[in-house]
């Protein structure tokens, strides 16, 4: 017999926990749900737009009754649970129903705090919590004129805005001298107040309510200073308090909320709790994002997976008043020793403030232009060192490493693990993945598949921008999203760390240690793991050809007709007549239909049949060539300019340096392709400043540049440093490459990697830490001992012959 799970509270947190549970273990429990309200699960945070007439009740239903039926869930609405008998393990409802449980999930939510002043129980005094409250407010708006909202916080202002939209004359009464003091600093709060006043909202600040006036129905509000105002409707929105009556009555330990541990378990191990009724590490949350994180954890344990932990949340806020853009997160009021960066443009109604401590963002308040709120919030949570972007950070992410793509680039420039939907914890990578893999075209599609923009909706604009940019483009193997792929929950960083720290030296060990969900992985994770193992254990790991893309297995680029292209290596782009003659001979012998010079100064032979590859490589090898690795996530080419021998501007021995760099680095496998260039003077004919590693020679030495890219999104390199000798160039180059090889995610080019970890971090490892640099360089050279084996020569001599020959079948 299946175990029985009872959910008390048919709201957002509880039902989300069920959804997560059904994903993990669809058949584990017989599930019964009790809700006090007569509706199926609806989106409580969208009550404000309903009140404002921008949405209907139907729009905000999250799970229709059909959903409960489909999943075999027994739903009882309008029937509140009134008692829990923990000894007999059953719950009892208002209507007298009794249902037994093996596991109980409490999600009783919260109730609005009603200020205990005389008259607070009169007709026309409401909280703002559920559909019934909204119905009463709409009813009042039809019959009465004057409304007073007590509480100038998030909820109060949304209620006031809604009532105003319904034609009421609204006064907001607030105890403090600024609005939304828990989310805003004074300048932002004053901008907000001015903007709301312009819309016709009135304010009474620093006003303490002392009495609600009236006979049966409210007629006014009196304040502590003796003054009073008229009111036909009073909405109290001064806060919420966790609804713990049921848990307390059942003897479950409660303080302000129902106390839970990091697995969302209450003091009774059979009873879990999630949502606004919960107190976790001393904190009760009233925003939706933490509740959903809790739901995920509770579901993980209910499904008996038992590995997730909830460790508390950093929250951010947006106000849902149409036409007002406001964002706040973290410690937005500076403390002693904190620095603040402020951008103020009163004419445009724009205000942005970042609170900085030790070069890290601690808090953010934004008004008027909140586009970059998501980015600041990510920098805040990840504790990113922002010293390199201080000068431009307030202008937004598109201004840091500007690529000149304008507004659309703002979303495009967010990294894949940037959170787009804060409510549901949906990252950019997941949304793009869903758009691409499921062929989604509309905002509603994305909501249905990813949950992004399905709660408070304030990220809908970002999601639409993502849709526009993704659907408009073709296929793009997108790097570095949160989990490596569907085969695992683990991120790239977690996998790299496990391989290194637990000395996992073959793929099976990684699968076993990290509980891979599929027996052989997939075409996404296997190449990544193969790379990580190779990069970490160059001497021990046996490269797995079966986990490489065909290009790297066949050591040529597969073309769309199934033929291959062959690019021999020409160190530094230098060649001799004999080299060219040898290449010409090979091209004729194997009837190569097309040749061209590549962007990296090499010669490409197109249209080679797979069976011909080993023989062709033998001829090229005999002529002294090695593989150009033009097909690999590997070191590609070192591009050079004319150089001092011929060019009147040339400095240093740039061409020879290019050759030395290529001799040092060829054959190295990388997270993604890697290009170098050496220019002999600042005219930079080798285009070194759009390469992964570029050297610009000057009279006094060598400028080293990193993280450039000339592809889809042009990125100019960052200047790493200037050095004085060729030996130093080689050492810094090797160290930088090794850092990239050890720490970047598979399929992450240096440009996004440098932006992700920051130039400051790379300088700290390659520049400031001399010992560390030498160690990186040494590890690179050790790896090269194993990597610099020419794959063409091996195969020309017969290695992996099966790869290139079809099976002969007798009689065919």
């Amino acid at each position: 017999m299946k175990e029985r799970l009872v959910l008390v509270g048919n709201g957002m947190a509880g039902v989300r926990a069920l959804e997560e549970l059904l994903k993990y273990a669809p058949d584990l429990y017989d599930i019964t749900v009790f809700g006090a309200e007569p509706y199926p699960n609806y989106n409580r945070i969208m009550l404000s737009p309903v009140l404002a007439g921008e949405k209907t009740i139907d729009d905000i239903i999250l799970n229709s009754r059909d959903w409960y039926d489909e999943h075999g869930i027994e739903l009882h609405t309008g029937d509140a649970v009134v008692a829990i008998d923990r000894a007999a393990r059953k719950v009892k409802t208002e209507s007298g129903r009794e249902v037994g449980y093996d596991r109980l999930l409490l999600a009783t939510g919260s109730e609005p705090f009603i200020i205990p002043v005389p008259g607070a129980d009169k007709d026309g005094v409401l909280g703002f919590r559920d559909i019934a409250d909204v119905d009463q407010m709409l009813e009042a708006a039809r019959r009465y004129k004057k409304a007073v909202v007590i509480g100038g916080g998030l909820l109060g202002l949304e209620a006031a805005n809604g009532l105003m939209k319904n034609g009421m004359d609204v006064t907001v009464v607030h105890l403090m001298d600024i609005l939304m003091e828990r989310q805003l600093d004074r300048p932002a709060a004053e901008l907000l107040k001015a903007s709301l006043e312009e819309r016709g909202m009135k304010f009474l600040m620093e006003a303490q309510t002392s009495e609600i006036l009236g006979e049966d129905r409210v007629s006014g509000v009196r304040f502590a200073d003796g003054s009073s105002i008229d009111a036909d409707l009073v909405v109290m929105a001064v806060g919420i308090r966790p609804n713990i009556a049921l848990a307390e009555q059942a003897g479950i330990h409660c303080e302000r909320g129902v106390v839970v541990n990091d697995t969302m378990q209450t003091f009774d191990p059979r009873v879990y709790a999630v949502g606004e009724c919960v107190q976790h590490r001393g904190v009760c949350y009233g925003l939706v994002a933490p509740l959903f994180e809790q739901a995920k954890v509770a579901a993980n344990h209910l499904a008996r997976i038992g590995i997730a932990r909830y460790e508390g949340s950093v929250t951010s806020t947006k106000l849902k008043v149409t036409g007002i853009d406001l964002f706040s997160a973290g410690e937005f009021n500076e403390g002693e020793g904190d620095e603040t960066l402020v951008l103020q443009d009163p004419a445009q109604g724009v205000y942005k403030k970042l609170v900085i401590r030790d070069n890290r963002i601690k808090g953010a308040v934004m008004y008027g232009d909140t586009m970059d709120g998501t980015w600041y919030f990510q920098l805040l949570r990840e504790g990113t060192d922002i010293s390199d972007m201080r000068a431009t950070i307030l202008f937004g992410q598109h201004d840091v490493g500007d690529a000149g793509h304008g507004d659309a680039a703002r979303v495009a420039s967010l990294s894949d693990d940037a959170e787009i939907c804060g409510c549901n914890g949906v990252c950019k990578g997941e949304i793009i993945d869903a758009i691409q893999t499921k062929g989604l075209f509309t905002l509603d599609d994305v909501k249905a598949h990813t949950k992004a923009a399905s709660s408070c909706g304030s990220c809908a604009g970002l999601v639409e921008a993502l849709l526009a940019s993704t659907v408009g483009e073709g296929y793009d193997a997108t790097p570095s999203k949160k989990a490596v792929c569907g085969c695992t929950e683990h991120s790239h960083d977690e996998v790299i760390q496990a391989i290194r720290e637990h000395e996992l030296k073959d793929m099976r060990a990684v699968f076993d240690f990290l509980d891979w969900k599929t027996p052989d992985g997939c075409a996404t994770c296997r190449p990544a793991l193969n790379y990580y193992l190779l990069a970490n254990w160059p001497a021990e790991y046996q490269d797995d050809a079966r986990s490489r893309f065909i290009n790297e297995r066949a050591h040529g680029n597969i073309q769309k007709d199934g033929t291959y292209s062959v690019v021999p290596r020409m160190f530094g782009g230098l060649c001799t007549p004999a080299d060219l003659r040898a290449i010409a001979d090979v091209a004729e012998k194997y009837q190569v239909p097309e040749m061209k010079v590549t962007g990296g100064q090499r010669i490409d032979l197109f249209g080679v049949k797979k069976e011909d590859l080993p023989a062709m490589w033998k001829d090229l090898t005999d002529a002294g060539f090695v593989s150009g690795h033009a097909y690999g996530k590997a070191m590609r080419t070192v591009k050079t300019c004319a150089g001092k021998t011929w060019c009147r501007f040339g400095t240093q021995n740039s061409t020879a340096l290019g050759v030395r760099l290529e001799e040092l680095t060829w054959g190295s496998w990388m997270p993604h392709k890697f290009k170098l260039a050496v220019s002999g003077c600042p005219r930079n004919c080798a285009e070194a400043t759009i390469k992964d590693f570029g050297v610009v020679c000057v009279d006094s030495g060598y400028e080293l540049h990193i993280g450039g890219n000339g592809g889809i999104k042009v990125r100019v390199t960052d200047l790493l440093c200037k050095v004085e000798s060729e030996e130093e160039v080689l050492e810094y180059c090797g160290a930088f490459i090794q850092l990239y090889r050890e720490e970047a995610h598979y399929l992450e080019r240096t440009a996004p990697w440098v932006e992700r970890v920051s130039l400051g971090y790379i300088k700290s490892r390659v520049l400031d830490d001399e010992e560390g640099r030498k160690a990186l360089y040494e590890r690179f050279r050790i790896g090269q001992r194993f990597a610099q084996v020419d794959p063409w020569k091996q195969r020309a001599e017969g290695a992996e012959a099966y790869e290139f020959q079809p099976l002969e079948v007798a009689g065919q």
Partner: protein
Amino acid sequence: MNDWTRIAPLDEIPRLGARVIKTDTMEIAVFRTSSDEVFAINNACPHKQGPLSEGIVHGHAVTCPLHNWNIDLASGEALGPDEGCTNTFPAKVDDGIVYIDLKHSARAC
């Protein structure tokens, strides 16, 4: 009744890999999974005729090297959101030797 043709010893096909047989009219890819099961399938992805034999094999599926479609080796059908299928041929391993019935392709599509 199946009409088995002897192909090759199982050892000549790499585990989690494939080899190709060329007939007069088509190429057939012979796959070997991690658990040594063998599948034979028309070597053309239903999407753009990519050579499936060059794809990465995982479970009972292969990922096409050209545009990453996943094809089920047993049924020849595209997995997940993609739609399409390619012909399969009965295949078996008998005493370490791979046999394929080249005459009875399953034309499900």
